[in-house]
């Protein structure tokens, strides 16, 4: 007792535990498990060594009875150190309160534009910080939405994020700087959408009701559908779309076309508000990548993400961007292709204005000359 020094020693045969006897100067091997044995620590009575055992990439904890060489492994997973509490007969209690993952609750408050993550962890008290990370799944992989630090006060913490609009969201809470309580991560996965029960992707609700025709001119009937998963009020979306399409500055204004919203029979095109995943499906093979809107054969597919967040790079006003978005996609429905800007004069709404203006000016209503070019329109 007190005369030996245990150590982890490496020689060409591997890394094992050894004992060095100070009086005799002899070194004897204690373990030869075939893996790597590291960081020996004595029990208080000096009979046993706890150590880290590594075999390949995995590590674990074990102990060896020094006199017999008998090894006991411990089911504690991968460890970097293991130390027995040094008290031979009676140990101080360690029955302090430790918050466990099950004690962590996370609530998500959703508004149209934001996600607010509210956390509550039992026994954490005040102090320390939580790191909240939000990711959303985009084309199969999770991508970051944002991360926020929150001070922990009375066990509570919170963070606010721009609301992502694609698929499933994941919230991860980590307590990296926390002292004295739960130091591990806890993840919660939730649906970013306001999904009503039973609503599945692509479940499109037809907006009922027929509106009067916008004015004289050749009739263009259209329908409006809203994917239930968007949780948008279909009537609210329809009202805004109709306001745009019935506006005298729009495609039908000045007697060019008679726009009419219907809920049955034939229609020239259908305007659909959809979540990004559904947009990608309805727009295929157009590469919308969950980010763009499109017009495809007969449907103008409006990306919920754009409808809610707009295109901040090109439009400060969400109202104007929405006018552009509807007029642009409906323009495709009226057989307009894309246009580039012109020198002088009113700019075309058929120029792409999401993400970048490509050196051109903005136009959220069709130019008069553009309306005149609508096939079948009364000029």
């Amino acid at each position, binding site marked *: 007792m007190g005369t030996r020094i245990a150590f982890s020693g490496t020689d060409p045969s591997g890394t094992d535990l050894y004992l060095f006897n100070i009086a005799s100067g002899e070194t004897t091997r204690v373990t030869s498990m075939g893996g790597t044995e590291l960081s020996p620590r004595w029990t208080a009575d000096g009979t046993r060594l706890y150590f880290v055992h590594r075999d390949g990439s995995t590590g674990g904890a074990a102990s060896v009875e020094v006199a017999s060489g008998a090894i006991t492994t411990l089911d504690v997973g991968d460890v970097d150190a293991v130390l027995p509490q040094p008290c031979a007969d009676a140990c101080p209690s360690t029955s302090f309160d430790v918050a466990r993952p099950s004690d962590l609750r996370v609530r998500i408050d959703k508004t149209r534009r934001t996600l607010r993550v509210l956390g509550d962890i039992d026994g954490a008290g005040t102090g320390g910080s939580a790191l909240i990370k939000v990711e959303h799944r985009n084309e199969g992989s999770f991508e970051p939405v944002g991360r926020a630090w929150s001070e922990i006060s009375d066990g509570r913490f919170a963070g606010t994020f721009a609301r992502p609009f694609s698929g499933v969201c994941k919230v991860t809470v980590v307590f990296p700087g926390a002292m004295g309580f739960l*130091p591990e991560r806890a993840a919660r996965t939730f649906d970013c959408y306001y999904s009503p029960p039973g609503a599945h992707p692509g479940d499109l609700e037809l907006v009922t009701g027929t509106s009067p025709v916008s004015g004289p001119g050749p009739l263009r009937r259209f329908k409006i559908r809203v994917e239930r998963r968007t949780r948008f009020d279909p009537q609210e979306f329809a009202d805004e779309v109709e306001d745009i399409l019935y506006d005298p500055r729009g495609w039908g204004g000045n007697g060019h076309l008679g726009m009419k919203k219907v809920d049955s029979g034939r229609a020239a095109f259908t305007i659909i508000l959809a979540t990004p995943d559904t947009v990608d499906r309805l727009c295929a093979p157009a590469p919308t990548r969950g980010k763009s809107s499109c017009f495809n054969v007969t449907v103008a597919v409006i990306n919920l993400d754009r409808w809610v967040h707009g295109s901040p790079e090109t439009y400060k006003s969400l109202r104007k961007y929405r006018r552009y978005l509807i007029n642009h996609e409906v323009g495709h429905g009226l057989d307009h292709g894309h246009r580039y800007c012109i020198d002088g004069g009113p700019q075309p709404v058929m120029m792409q204005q999401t993400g970048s203006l490509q050196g051109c000016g903005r136009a959220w209503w069709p130019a008069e000359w553009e309306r005149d070019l609508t096939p079948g329109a009364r000029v």
Partner: protein
Amino acid sequence: MHRAALAALVAVASSLLHAPPVALSRPASGDPNLLLQRTADLGGGDTKDVLWLAATDGSALRPWIPGASPAWSPAGDAVAFSAPGVKGVEDVFVLPIEGERPFNLTSSPGAETSPSWSPDGQDLAVVTAVGISILDLAGGSETLADAEGGAGPSWSPDGAEIAYVRAVGATRQLHVAAIDGSGSRQITSDAIDHSSPAWSPDGDADRVQWYRPQRNRSLSL
């Protein structure tokens, strides 16, 4: 690092230590616990060293606090460990197991790691940029073992010496330094690369003092 300069630093640090040692009643008894260090995956490639507690058989595994290179106090009532301090470098913290917040024993610009308790629970040997330094927790003097470049300190059960490893040629060899500063000697010289020395205990628990956290104390090594 020159010993004279370090001694001067230690002297400054000593002046900050005036809290007298306090004997406490023995806490409630229980079975020994295991202290474990594990790597936590924070996601995105970030990891963190975290200390866990478990029963002796490995059951009742539960996370405790972030930290690395832990060491039980001799009475098993506190843990010293290293963790990033406010300056972002590794400092040595002490946390009593009753759940008080840990406090930082060191606040130097350099890193301090691998604490080892003296058998009476009143001192800590730590690895610093210059070797092995001794922090006197009870408010007395501090001395420096003659152990420049040393790592992995382990106190002898009589408290008179510290074993450590230091590179000698291609391998690390065991050394022993007297804490009275009278010198250091190499005790092994074979082909084995030595690491993590652990001096066997002598089973004499009488001189162990129960640890008590003392606030408003900061060492500047």
